[in-house]
């Protein structure tokens, strides 16, 4: 037997919540910290789902972002500079080459539109197949569950019959 000075664990447990409240008031645990951590991990876990549905949704989201980024291709870049007066130099250069860069940007947007159009078709296709899969899975599940219910019922009927047969055999 080991002898140590015993502390009241129950008292310590009761004091823990007060300590949390005190530390929260001191600003050591920022307000919303727990919600933030829980939501963050829940979001991370939601990305690990391996279903096609999530993949199609993710693809649709990426497509939306690509369309929006494509619209912003203007052929003009920022003229700001950290070095004083160099911004003026950039502005002059931009004005000189704007005719060419705008033309290139228009060509790039045209290519983007074509590629994004193809991707849009693919996402629509995936969605269509996914809907059909859902309908088929729902219908198959219903049939399987019906069959399982029948098998379960038959199983109990057979068990009962076996019990009766055993009883009859025992009385004979």
């Amino acid at each position, binding site marked *: 037997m080991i002898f140590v000075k015993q502390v009241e*664990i129950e008292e310590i447990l009761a004091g823990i919540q007060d300590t949390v409240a005190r530390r929260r008031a001191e600003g050591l645990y920022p307000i919303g910290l727990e919600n933030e951590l829980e939501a963050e*991990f829940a979001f991370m876990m939601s*990305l690990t789902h391996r279903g096609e549905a999530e993949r199609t949704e993710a693809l649709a989201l990426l497509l939306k972002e690509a369309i929006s980024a494509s619209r912003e291709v203007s052929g003009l870049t920022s003229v700001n500079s950290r070095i004083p007066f160099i911004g003026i130099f950039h502005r002059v250069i931009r004005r000189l080459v704007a005719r060419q860069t705008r033309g290139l940007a228009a060509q790039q947007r045209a290519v983007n539109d074509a590629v994004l159009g193809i991707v849009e078709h693919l996402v629509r296709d995936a969605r269509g197949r996914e809907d059909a899969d859902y309908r088929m899975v729902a219908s198959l599940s219903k049939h399987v569950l019906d069959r399982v219910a029948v098998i379960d019922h038959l199983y*109990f009927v057979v068990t009962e019959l076996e019990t009766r047969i055993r009883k009859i055999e025992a009385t004979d």
Partner: protein
Amino acid sequence: MQSVHQIIVGASRRDAITNMALSLRESLRSQYKSNIYSYHPPDESVEDDVHPIHELQFGSSNDIIVYHSSFGIPKLTALLQARSEKLALVYHNITPSSYYVRSDPDFAAALEWGRHELRLLQPLVNATFADSKFNAAELLEYGYSNIVELAAGVNPHRLHDEPSDEKLTKELRGHFPDGFILVVSQVIPHKRMELAIEAVHLLRSVHRLDIGLVIAGPQRNEGYLRQLQALRSHLPEAHVLFMGETTDSELATLYRRCSVYFGTSDHEGLAIPPLEAMSAGAPVVIRGVGAVPETVGNAALVASPTARICELTEMLYAVVTNNELRDTLIARGSEHVQHNFANDTSSEFIRRINELAL
């Protein structure tokens, strides 16, 4: 000679159910012909001790099959239904499928089948064992009666004679000179290991404790492990070592050297690692879910199942920094496992099996 064979779903030396079955087999063999059969091929750590299920021969109605239920496999259910031996069921709990419906539907379906199997087997079962009150209460819902509550074959002291792993000891000293928190479990979502990563981040960033975290256990869900690793990278103060599957010697070293054992799981039918930690002299902080409160008694700092991360962090902080609390938990833990698990739980199991064999 009558036979009492045991059936388990999978077999590995690192698996708690396999160890329980091995411990029971030793006792059973004194009176019966007794082997262990595994549905999934046994891994190399137990291939000399456990047979593949196809080697199980048909017995007579005088023989007994002990089935360890923890999962569901339709083919195994059918096999059990077709047997003529008497059937004893040992229920180790089945994780609720809701944790896996979206992330791993196949696994979720197998868990759901496990619960369905309990209903199917109920009329065939001649003796029922549950290794906790919590598990016994679940079996009642499936129509079982006369349930014997017995953690048969559980031996928290099994690592006592294992020598410490010198190489690992050196590595731990290098990685975590001021100590580490230990989590031992399969790396799967319902074990909630993210709580341990977040807690260690807060201990280091808020309390300025130079403490690390070791997560030891087989990685069974790649997606979850990836997200845990991402979380570790995302939280700058999280100092975490993923050990993966360990040898018994490595596990004994971890229990002996950790500052505190931390149980984070959302669901436990019977938690063996905290008992092993107590036996090795580690203080235990654990979430009070499922069978945990009855398993650890008053020998651990048990958090409410609804306790959130700041509360859990404070509990760990209290144990690491308050020497009197730490010593109390170590002493109570040691007494708890000595008092409740020192006796051979197999003897009561054998007595019940003897009654069934008559």
